[in-house]
């Protein structure tokens, strides 16, 4: 709770191609979140779902996220962490339409973009998020 704003990353999220339909209403396609800069595993605990966060003000993110800076296994916030964070904080139903069956990645058919580039160019799950990054989740379309 004593976290300073330096312990959070300002991340712009965007959802498209239908992935926005998995979010809590009003299903904003564009959201700005404050992500803890250190990926404390406790953050990912499902009980945090009690506090649904739709568009987080900067300090609320910090309060939610960094419960203890001395927690073991905490590392820089990477895409692996962000995917879990979104699953726990933003997705309200049918999370299997967002995450992979292994629970770690993103389901087949969702393009993940980090600053408008395919995340496979950036290291995928291992990419360490930077303050100001823009991350998009776009479902590929099949219609014609």
């Amino acid at each position, binding site marked *: 709770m004593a976290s300073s704003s330096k312990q959070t990353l300002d991340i712009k999220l965007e959802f*498209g*191609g*239908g992935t926005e339909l998995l979010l809590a209403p009003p299903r904003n396609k564009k959201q700005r979140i404050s992500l803890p800069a250190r990926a404390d595993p406790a953050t990912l605990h499902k009980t945090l779902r009690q506090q649904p966060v739709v568009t987080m003000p900067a300090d609320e993110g910090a309060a939610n996220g960094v419960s203890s800076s001395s927690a073991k296994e905490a590392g820089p916030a990477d895409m692996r962490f962000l995917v879990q964070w979104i699953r726990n904080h933003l997705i309200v139903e049918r999370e299997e339409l967002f995450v992979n069956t292994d629970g770690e990645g993103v389901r087949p058919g969702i393009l993940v*973009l980090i600053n408008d*580039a395919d995340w496979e*160019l950036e290291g995928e799950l291992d990419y360490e998020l930077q303050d100001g990054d823009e991350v998009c989740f776009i479902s590929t*379309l*099949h*219609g014609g």
Partner: protein
Amino acid sequence: TKIDSLPLTPSEYQRYGRQMILPGFGGLPAQLILKRSRVLVVGAGGLGCPAVQYLALGGVGHITVVDHDVVERSNLARQCLHTEKRIGMSKAESIRVAVEALNPHVTLAPITQQFTASNALPLVSSHDLVLDCTDNPLTRYLINDAAVLCGKAVVSGAAQGLEGQLVVLHRELYDINGAGSSGRGPCYRCLFPVAPRPQDVTDCSEGGVLGTITGLVGTLQANETIKLLLEGLHRSADGNGEGSPSPPTPTMLLASPMSVASSTLFRSIKLRPRRTDCRVCGDETALTAKGLRRISSLEEEDYISFCGLATL
């Protein structure tokens, strides 16, 4: 010879004059390239209609359209080459009728069968490139695999809801000196090695789609096709700045033209390069190292299981 001295009829000169004089198009040589081109369009629906419309208007000489569906009234709010009167007619045949009226100088060959693993290779190999205007992942993988096996590019469009996507797959890349091909961009399997589960796939009959979106994407597919067909000509021209393409980074265009935010109406995203261990366009060494079997016969591939449709 006489044919060489007047390669277009006077009627064709009149028709195509406005585009032949266009700086950056390429004049008569460009028009002749289009006239001699053979393009395969898979899908005669929301994307196929506008794509074929502008390919035919522009003078692409031979267009084959593959679709086994018939025209239904629910298609007519977006599929611009079909009409109320042709409800019940095969879509491919309906497009042939429309194109005959639009431009008698081009040939529209309708194929009223489904695009399958059996007919994919002969169809694709007899054309210069393929437009993917279909509406389901299985056919998208099939078109991709056939195109890679035949060494052709795919101009792939998709539209759903209020969004559209456009990407050229397996396209030849050229290095900046124009010294020749420096390989190929990613194919559909490079981008999506695992097919989406059927429950994650919505189509237009469930999710809906708006005609201006399919119209936009289909028109852009025609545009991209003309660009690709004329690429060789433009690359060899000393050019005026338009004429010498730099090596294209693989990109996908995302279109959300109904969005209110002008910054997201259109966006080009950078894609990953070709996957060396891609099962269809990958390198032998990388595949062997990973114990993967290269796709060499479409009929031996189980597309139904791959797309998770076996148990449906």
